[in-house]
């Protein structure tokens, strides 16, 4: 019996080792210049300002995409700027011929199956909501995309 378990564990280890995806943060999410009291939304389809990750995996494979999103951006002095996301603030764009774009809610995990291309972009937008008395300056935050390989 112990040898059977050892074989199964070895098989599991082999299977996991063979399935890797490639994830790269390629472009930051830029909200640009903002006026106090005026919200600004960046769509995930904004080629210049939306954040962009590259996620590569094999055709026929499947991944689960999970964002870790900041609810505020911060200045160096600790002052914060509210940032929100909607049900369409994230998008998956296939790379290559017949490229398609599908939006999704970055607040929930998204499962994606590679059917035609081994390469996709995962893009992220959002809305900053500066208060009418928002302190001027540069605010930053970190967005992390975790890709779990399911198949």
């Amino acid at each position, binding site marked *: 019996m112990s040898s059977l378990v050892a074989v*199964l564990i070895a098989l599991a280890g082999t299977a996991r080792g063979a399935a890797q995806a490639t*994830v790269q*943060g390629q472009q930051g999410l830029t909200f640009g*210049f903002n006026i106090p009291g005026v919200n600004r939304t960046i769509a995930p389809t904004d080629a210049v300002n939306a954040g962009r990750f590259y996620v590569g995996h094999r055709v026929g494979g499947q991944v689960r995409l999970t964002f870790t999103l900041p609810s505020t951006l911060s200045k160096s002095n600790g002052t914060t700027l509210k940032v929100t996301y909607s049900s369409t603030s994230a998008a998956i764009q296939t790379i290559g011929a017949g490229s398609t774009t599908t939006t999704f809610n970055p607040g929930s995990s998204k499962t994606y199956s590679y059917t035609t291309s081994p390469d996709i972009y995962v893009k992220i937008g959002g809305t900053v909501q500066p208060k009418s008395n928002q302190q001027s300056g540069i605010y930053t935050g970190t967005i992390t995309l975790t890709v779990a390989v399911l198949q």
Partner: protein
Amino acid sequence: MSNFHAVTGRRLAALIALAIVAAPLSAQSASITATATVFRPITISGARNLDFANVFPGVNKSVAVSAATSGRFDIVAEASQAVSLTFALPTTLASGVNSLAIGSWNGCWNATNSTTGCTTFTPSASASNATVGGATNLYVFVGATVLPTAAQVAGAYTGTVSLTVAYF
């Protein structure tokens, strides 16, 4: 004992198989930065009134932007940023029921409190563009010409000049 081992072995195998199916085979992550720059709010104050002083019937009188009695607005905004200047201008000054026509307006903006080297423009309800100075200051000077008639009624005539400044 062998039965116990067989059952336990099947359970273990099932658990491991389940783990292989349900658990991610691997996971990677990457991060990017989100950045926003917030401008300082625009503050604007009417710093000096436009004053035509004494005006005589039938004699037009102009106040140049460089005159000591030109109107002036002082603005503080984000350094080096473009802003629009939009005016609400009276066409006449009023003294009770009497009015005094205004023939034309002229303006000038500068990053310093001086009309030397300033950029001229024509104040109007249509936006004019200006650039805030590197020290966050912008000064807007306003002059005009009044057209008193030969029968202009004596009195003190006044009107209001409003300026709206916005980022664009």
